């Protein structure tokens, strides 16, 4: 009996102790973040979160912002959505309702971002700045308060298809995470442009995020004798695809859309096995092609976290500077004022990426920003910048506007 009493008391005590709560300082601006910090999507979510924290630290160290004569620093409240849209919506509700947050950043997973956008799109007093999540529909639903830094996957797919055709590839096999919206969208545009430039897709296979054994799919594809193979997918299954292609002695070229860091790939493959593999992606942090501000960002990230940033993490970094600059320019913390400002503003000078402006503005009428697209190739332990892939941002922006009318 005594055991039970003690247990009970411990239970209750434990619960009380752990049920803490925090209150915000009055000169702090609360910034919310929803990102996958654990589980399989954390490969993109955790670095993005780190980049966001870096930006906030830099801003606060430089004195924060001044609004209406008052000085403020930023404080981050982050929630882990585990790559699950239900958690993301729940976290969004918590941020808005319990924590009183008006600006929510982060968003590495498309499904989470879409579910949350449906929840708070066009809602009063909430601003959503999206990072890595690449699905097209995030910006085509007509939500005034949703903006995204990273271009939709389809924007890169088209130029990539043309690039591969230009390399002389006639017969292409494809193995990718094709059931995932972002890769499916990329591939749709890729296929169209590749075929329009004279290429032929000889086989299409898919893998899931958690799959590691691609032998069967690769065997099937290789029996069709392709010149090259294209692998659009998340870095983890893609790395194994690359490894197994080498094991199966595939002698064609390997093109990818994966966005992984040297550390992530070297977990799985040798440098020698990686040599020559291409990555066709939006200009993120693929260092050789970047501006000085961009290079500084990478250095600072490495210094603070001891690893290279995942290429797409920079989107969250820039988002934070967008927020800060908008607040400064509008001299207001009100969401309505900020939305007006963001719609008009140029890219912030502290932004790490170089943006293609539409009508001189950072964001197009859909709330989408654009960078250029680049082809990278692995050499000696890292991605080397090869060339820019021809892209027409304005054209794509018009395409998005058409899509949003449907």
């Amino acid at each position: 009996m005594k055991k039970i009493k003690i247990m009970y008391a411990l239970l209750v005590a434990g619960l009380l102790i752990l049920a803490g709560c925090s209150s915000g300082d009055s000169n702090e601006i609360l910034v919310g973040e929803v990102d996958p910090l654990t589980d399989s999507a954390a490969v993109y979510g955790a670095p993005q979160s780190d980049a966001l924290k870096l930006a906030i630290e830099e801003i606060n160290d430089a004195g924060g912002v001044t609004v209406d004569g008052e000085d403020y620093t930023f404080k981050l409240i982050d929630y882990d959505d585990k790559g699950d849209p239900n958690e993301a919506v729940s976290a969004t509700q918590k941020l808005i309702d319990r924590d009183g947050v008006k600006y929510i950043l982060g968003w590495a997973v498309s499904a989470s971002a879409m579910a949350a956008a449906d929840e708070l799109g066009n809602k009063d007093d909430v601003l959503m700045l999206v990072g890595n999540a690449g699905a097209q529909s995030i910006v085509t639903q007509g939500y005034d308060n949703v903006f995204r830094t990273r271009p939709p996957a389809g924007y890169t797919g088209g130029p990539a298809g043309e690039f591969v055709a230009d390399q002389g590839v006639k017969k292409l096999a494809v193995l990718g995470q094709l059931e995932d919206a972002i890769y499916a969208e990329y591939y749709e545009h890729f296929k169209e442009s590749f075929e329009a430039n004279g290429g032929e897709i000889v086989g299409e296979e898919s893998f899931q995020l958690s799959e590691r054994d691609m032998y069967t799919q690769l065997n099937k594809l290789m029996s069709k004798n392709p010149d090259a193979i294209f692998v659009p997918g998340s870095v983890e299954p893609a790395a194994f695809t690359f490894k197994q292609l080498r094991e199966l002695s595939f002698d064609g070229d390997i093109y990818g859309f994966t966005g992984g860091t040297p550390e992530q790939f070297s977990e799985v493959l040798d440098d020698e096995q990686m040599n020559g593999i291409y990555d066709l992606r939006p200009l993120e942090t693929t260092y050789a092609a970047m501006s000085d501000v961009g290079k500084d960002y990478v250095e600072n990230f490495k210094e603070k976290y001891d690893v290279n940033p995942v290429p797409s993490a920079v989107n969250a970094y820039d988002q934070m500077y967008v927020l800060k600059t908008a607040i400064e320019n509008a001299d207001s913390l009100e969401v309505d004022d900020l939305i007006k400002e963001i719609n008009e503003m140029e890219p912030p000078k502290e932004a790490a990426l170089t943006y293609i402006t539409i009508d001189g503005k950072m964001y197009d009428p859909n709330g989408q920003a654009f960078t250029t697209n680049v082809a990278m190739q692995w050499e000696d332990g890292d991605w080397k910048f090869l060339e820019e892939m021809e892209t027409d941002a304005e054209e794509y922006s018009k395409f998005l506007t058409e899509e949003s009318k449907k």
Partner: protein
Amino acid sequence: MNKKRIILTLIILFSFVIPFLDIGSYNLHLVSYSLIWVILAQGLNVIQGFTGYVSIAQAGFFGIGAYSSAILSLNLGISVWLTIPLAIVISGIFGILIGYPALRTQGHYFAIVTMSFTMIIWVFMMSSVKFTGGEEGIPNIPSPSSVFGIDFSLKENYYYLILISVLITILFIYRLMQSRVGRAFITIRENEQLAQAVGISLLKYKMLSFTISAMLGGFAGALYVHYTHFVNPTPFTVDYSLNAILAVILGGSGTIIGPIIGAFIMIFLPEYLRIAEEYRLIIYAVMLILIVFYMPKGITNLIKIAYNKVLSKVARKSETKK
């Protein structure tokens, strides 16, 4: 007896008042979600607590009910008031289909077979992109159409719908367990061979028990999607089934209050353990192990023991006074 009735009535009245208390929309959301879980857990309790067969399929039925109601109302335009009962029926049909092979096994085997079914259902939900929307799921699921001018897209109003569903469910379980059918379930749990010897058709009653669990699971699922307006496969995994099992056990297996307490604990506890987010599940699991070692009959039993001790203390005091 009377005391119990009074307490019960007070609790029910209180639950009707909750939306008017200023607890914030997030906390109201947690309460609503807990109530949906009460239905899920009560369903599981029928096959697990009362009949003694631990099923890992409850999340699967939750999902079947959810997707059924979502697809029927969104794609076929059928009124939500109709799709929810339809979802219950569909879940019941799956209960029969799955129960038939599964109930030929017992104990741990049965658990693993039901687990396999949940996996199959889950993989199907993830892969049939055209039908279920795959991993991204189905958005924009409608709310029930208004009745008597009540707008059910408002969370406060939907709360009442959930609450009434919970009360109906609990009443149903109460009556079920008082009936011959309920007693047959318990007999099967206590001693299957004896049950057979006294003429209880094992297969018939086990199937009935499992099907009822499935239907209640589906009911919870249907209520869930018209509340969140969104469905994707994530809540329908083996993990969630395990959470449901824990809810029933923590609260008190084979009792009526048990699943209620268990459901609320499962939903609210993670909120309070948020401070130690990384360690939360470890603390959780360790607590569970300690509970199994020291409090195997669950919290309801603990409360019963505490209640009885208080009563006996009071009785002793009045005796010494004499």
